[in-house]
C-alpha cells in the first residue's frame, strides 16, 4: 500500500488551519493599536490618510481604551485633524485622571501649565502627585521622573515671590518621596543580606537579593502612597470642565467634527 504524502493526507485539516490563520491575521492587520496610532499622529502628518486612522481611534475609544481617549485629548489640544480646544482637552484629561490613568494626569498638568491664568500650585501638586505615586512603579516610573523634570522647568517660568515658595514646596515633596522610597530599598537590602548570611551559601546570594528586590519595591510603593495621602494636595477635577465642550450631545468622548 502506498502511503499518501503528509500534506495530502491532512488536506482538510490544513485548509482549516490556514483559514484560522488568515482570519486571525487579517484581524491583526485591520486593528490598530493605540501606540501605532500615537506614532502615526506624531509623525505622519498626511491629511488624506487621516480619516481611517481617526475612525480606528473612535473604535478604540468605544472599547473604553484609555490610551485612545488620552490620544484624542492630545489631538484636540494641538488641533491636529480635529478642532483645537484646550477646554475639551482639559475635560478629557480630567476625566481620565480620575480613572487613575497616569499619562492623563501628566497631560492635565501640561495643559494647565500652558494657561496664563492657571494656578501654579495646582499644576505642581498634580506633577508632585504623579511623582509620588509612580516613582516605584514598574510601568510608569519614567513618567514620574518626567513629572519632576517638567515641574522644575515650569517653576522656572514663574515670577517671584510665588516662585520661591512653590519651588521649596515642590522640592521638599520630591525629596521626601525619594527618601521614603530609598529607605525602603535599603531596608529590604539589609533584610536580604541577613537572610543570605543565615543561609551561608554563595549560590543563594543572588536569589535572595532578587526576592528582596520584589518585597522591597512593594514596601517602597506603599511608603510613597502614604506620603501622597498625607502631604500632597490632591487635585480635585472641576466638574465645570466637563461642561465647557460637549461635541456630541453631551458625550465627552464623541469626536468633534472638523
Amino acid at each position, binding site marked *: 500500500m502506498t502511503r499518501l504524502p503528509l500534506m495530502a493526507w491532512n488536506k482538510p485539516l490544513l485548509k482549516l488551519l490556514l483559514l484560522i490563520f488568515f482570519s486571525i491575521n487579517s484581524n491583526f492587520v485591520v486593528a490598530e493599536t493605540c501606540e501605532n496610532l500615537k506614532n502615526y499622529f506624531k509623525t505622519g502628518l498626511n491629511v488624506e490618510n487621516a480619516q481611517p486612522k481617526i475612525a480606528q481611534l473612535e473604535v478604540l475609544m468605544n472599547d473604553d481604551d484609555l490610551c485612545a481617549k*488620552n490620544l484624542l485629548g492630545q489631538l484636540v489640544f494641538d488641533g491636529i485633524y480635529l478642532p483645537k480646544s484646550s477646554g475639551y482637552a482639559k475635560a478629557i484629561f480630567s476625566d481620565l485622571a480620575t480613572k487613575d490613568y497616569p499619562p492623563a494626569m501628566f497631560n492635565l498638568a501640561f495643559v494647565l501649565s500652558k494657561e496664563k491664568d492657571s494656578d501654579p500650585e495646582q499644576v505642581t501638586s498634580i506633577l508632585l502627585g504623579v511623582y509620588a505615586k509612580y516613582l516605584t512603579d514598574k510601568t510608569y516610573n519614567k513618567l514620574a521622573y*518626567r513629572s519632576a523634570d517638567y515641574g522644575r522647568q515650569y517653576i522656572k517660568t514663574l515670577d517671584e515671590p510665588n516662585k520661591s515658595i512653590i519651588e521649596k514646596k515642590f522640592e521638599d515633596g*520630591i*525629596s521626601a518621596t525619594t527618601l521614603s522610597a530609598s529607605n525602603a*530599598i535599603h531596608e529590604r537590602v539589609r533584610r536580604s543580606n541577613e537572610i543570605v548570611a543565615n543561609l551561608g551559601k554563595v549560590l543563594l546570594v543572588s536569589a535572595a537579593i532578587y526576592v528582596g528586590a520584589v518585597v522591597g519595591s512593594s514596601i*517602597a510603593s506603599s511608603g510613597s502612597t502614604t506620603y501622597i495621602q498625607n502631604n500632597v494636595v490632591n487635585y480635585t477635577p472641576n466638574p465645570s470642565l466637563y461642561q465647557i465642550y460637549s461635541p456630541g450631545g453631551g458625550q465627552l468622548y464623541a469626536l468633534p467634527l472638523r
Partner: protein
Amino acid sequence: MWRIFLCIFSALLASGCAVTPTPTQTVELQKYLGDSCYELITRPGVANYKFHATHFYPLVHAYFALASDGKDKQVCSFTTTTMALGRENNNRIAALGSCNELRTRYGIQAPCKIFARNYEIIYDKTSTHGME
C-alpha cells in the same frame, strides 16, 4: 544554558567589554564636578562607582546623583549595582535618596538629580517637551 550565562558573565568581568570614560566624557565630568565628586566618580576599587559602571555594563546600570550650588558646594552619591538587582529603577532611587540625605545635611539648595548613568552624563539632558 547556565554555563553559557556564566561564561558570558565571566567574560564581561574579565574582558575589555568594560566601558571606561572616554576623554570627552572625562572633560565633561570635570566641567560639572568639583574635586571631591570627580574623585568619587573615578575612584578605582571594587566597592566604588567606577567598578560597577564599567564592569557590569550592560547587564546592570549604575547611577550617580548630584546636587550642585556651584562647583564648590555640591553633594553627590552613587549606588552599586548590587543594591537593587532585578530592578534598575531601584538603583536610581537609592542614588537619589542618598544624595537627598546629604543635601539636607549640608544645606545645599539645588535639587538632587541623576548626573550619570554609568559614564553617560544625563544631568542636563532631560526631555521635557510635549505630552504623554
